[in-house]
């Protein structure tokens, strides 16, 4: 496990971290979901968070997005601590997310879902909306246009835009969730199992899409994923959680060879049998 890459990732991470978690601990009563997790993402990278079920990955996500407040520890995003901020403030700062079990606004149209995503980037106040001031109309038209661009970007056909979100096929619902998250112009995009429930073809498309989005929109991406092919294929770095603690961290090839990780995933005998 010697460094072979042109730039040592550690050195880069230290100087240019977009998000840094410092000893984040989350307790639910006696249960410790996350214990002293240190974590960093450098700008522009794609990082995966992996671990067996119940390892505390989604809990960690929820703390990054403000849906839960860490029991202790600090999370710094783009130079600002986000601990104690409400989810909508964190969206405004530039963290967008999708959900493991797709959570769209089912009884709203596809385009409206994406337009809600742009909420924080719009200015129209309630009284200006009520009076339909010219500025509001302009903003509304611009938002609609941008939403349509995003739908195109994630590969949703235009004819869907006036359909109800919940009537879309499964794979397209995932794409729509992605478009909604992108609409808030995030710097950091959190994806909770973006390829769950997809067939190999859809999975490959989604993986390619995530990479393309990162390049085109200057994103930093953190994803939770179970599909090792996706993880190994897409990630620049991988963090492994097990029983709420950080087990390992490194580049894909390092993680693949890490005995502790193999043990956590496959059990003890596996190391010998494989």
């Amino acid at each position: 496990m010697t460094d072979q890459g042109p730039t040592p990732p550690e050195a880069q991470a230290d100087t240019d971290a977009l998000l840094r978690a410092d000893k984040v601990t989350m307790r639910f009563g006696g249960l410790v979901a996350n214990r002293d997790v240190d974590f960093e993402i450098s700008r522009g990278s794609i990082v995966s968070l992996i671990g067996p079920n119940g390892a505390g990955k989604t809990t960690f996500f929820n703390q990054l997005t403000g849906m839960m407040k860490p029991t202790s520890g600090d999370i710094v995003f783009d130079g600002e601590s986000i601990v104690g901020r409400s989810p909508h403030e964190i969206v405004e700062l530039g963290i967008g997310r999708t959900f493991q079990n797709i959570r769209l606004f089912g009884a709203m149209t596809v385009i409206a879902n994406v337009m809600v995503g742009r909420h924080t980037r719009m200015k129209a106040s309630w009284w200006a909306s009520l009076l339909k001031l010219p500025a509001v109309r302009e903003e509304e038209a611009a938002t609609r246009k941008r939403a349509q661009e995003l739908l195109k970007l994630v590969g949703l056909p235009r004819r869907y835009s006036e359909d109800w979100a919940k009537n879309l096929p499964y794979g397209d619902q995932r794409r729509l969730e992605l478009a909604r998250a992108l609409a808030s112009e995030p710097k950091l995009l959190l994806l909770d199992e973006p390829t769950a429930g997809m067939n190999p073809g859809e999975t490959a498309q989604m993986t390619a899409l995530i990479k393309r989005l990162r390049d085109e929109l200057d994103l930093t991406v953190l994803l939770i994923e179970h599909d090792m092919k996706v993880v190994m294929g897409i990630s620049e770095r991988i963090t492994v959680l097990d029983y709420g603690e950080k087990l390992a961290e490194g580049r894909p090839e390092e993680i693949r060879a890490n005995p502790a990780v193999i043990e956590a995933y496959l059990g003890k005998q596996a190391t010998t049998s494989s």
Partner: protein
Amino acid sequence: MTDMLLRRALFSGLIGGMAGLHVSLVGMVGTFQSRDLIADVVTVGTIMPMLIAILVGWQAGGPLRSAGLVPGPRDALALGAIAGAAVGLILAALAFLIVTFDINGILANARPALAEILQFGQGPLVGSVILILGLGLFGALGATLHLVPAALARAVTIGGVVTIIVALMEPFLGAVLRNVNLDLIEEFLYASGGLTPVGFVLVFALTAGGVYAWARRGGEVRERVAALPPERRRIGKLIWFAALGALLLLLPQIVGQRLSEVLGTVGLYVLLGLGLNIVVGFAGLLDLGYVAFYAVGAYTTAVLTSPASPAFSPELPFWGALPFVIVAAAFIGLLVGAPVLRLRGDYLAIVTLGFGEIAREIFKSAWAQPVTGGAQGILSIPAPLPFENDPQSIYYPILFFCILAAVAATSLASSRVGRAWNAMREDESVAEATGVNTTNYKLLAFGLGAAFGCVSGALFASKIGVIFADSFNILVSINALALIILGGMGNIAGVVVGALVLVGLPEFLREFAEYRLLIYGAVLVAMMLLRPEGLLPNRTRRAELHEQDDIDDQYEEEAGGGTARPVVT
């Protein structure tokens, strides 16, 4: 014909029989015997069992969805006839009981007169046979609605319902016609409290024919309108709006004093409905204490404007008090909104229900008496000048605020704000995680809802000139909620239609006063069973509620339909 269908037909007949017993024994049949539907031909009392028979026949002759059974034409007719005859049998038994035993002591309305109506004055034997066969016939008639093309069945049903309503509204429609000097039409259509036979046929033919023609040709017309160049469409729209506006402006003169009063009340409820629609329909916050806002608006106006109010002098004019009403609305909106921010669904409903009751009790209490007049209320509240305290005049400010509210609600619905509310209604935590400040948007919904409710209350106070705390009871909240559900949740035109039907119709049908709540309840139950999305549904709600139907239909289509075949649901 299978056992299952037969059993359902008998069961429908039994239910219909129960309904028939009920309307007979509460006295509706007897009371309405004195009211002609078609002059000198049929009374309102007589058609009640017939309508029930048609309804159960329709029910019995239709497809049995849960088992995927669709009766053939002959079976459908037979099933309808059986169900109808079952109703007849039960009513004949009632008539028989009445003439044989003296049950008048137990059941106040079980009088010989009732038996006579049920037996068509033909004596026990012949009368019973006529009743059973006749209702069987009407049952079969109900079943035929499934056998004719859907568009025709629809046209006939709507035509029938409209004709009956037109007949029932004789006292008012007649007055309106005389009012605008159309005595000739009035004499042609109406006689002795009901429609003339010719009028009956004419009204039925016009509505049924109109509905049918629209079903056949409506699509074409719509396409042709859509194909018109935009300028011409805009002109068409303008003409349409101008006509509607002119009608709305002239309405009080057309309908006269008595109906203007009703229109005013409808307008107040339209305002309430539009406000509550923001809270419940847009933002998904079930508020059962909406009357609190109505009361605050009314009391603020009364205290500030009435010379008889105990607390505040000198008196302001209505328009001077209005800004204070709005401020009070915002304040009370926040007061109610802030503590319930963390509550969802049922809990929110219960807490707001409590708020509504608390508001009324406070206004009535001895503690508040120096300001609100306590149980004595506040008298001599002036009208909003230059309008007078007269139904035909006060109609205009009410209309003005209704239009204002409707425009405001429409603009909000399709804006950033409306979308945020809808997102919150769909999934609150995801809305927050998508960037919506749910706390603020809940408060905004409560605040705006409160403003609409308070303005309605202010107009109410100056419309009737006196207010008592007991006017602001839970029925106001329930009415407002029921009308938006009936009209179609989240839809602004639906609010207007809902208010007309739920608030307007009962006022038009005043002689039904005794049975008003009964009919009201029955209409609501029927609506929820037959058309849960409301009369004018919002697209979204319709999708939610009919998803399962669509799946069923699809399956039936795929399965070929028609023959008996189990459907997986």
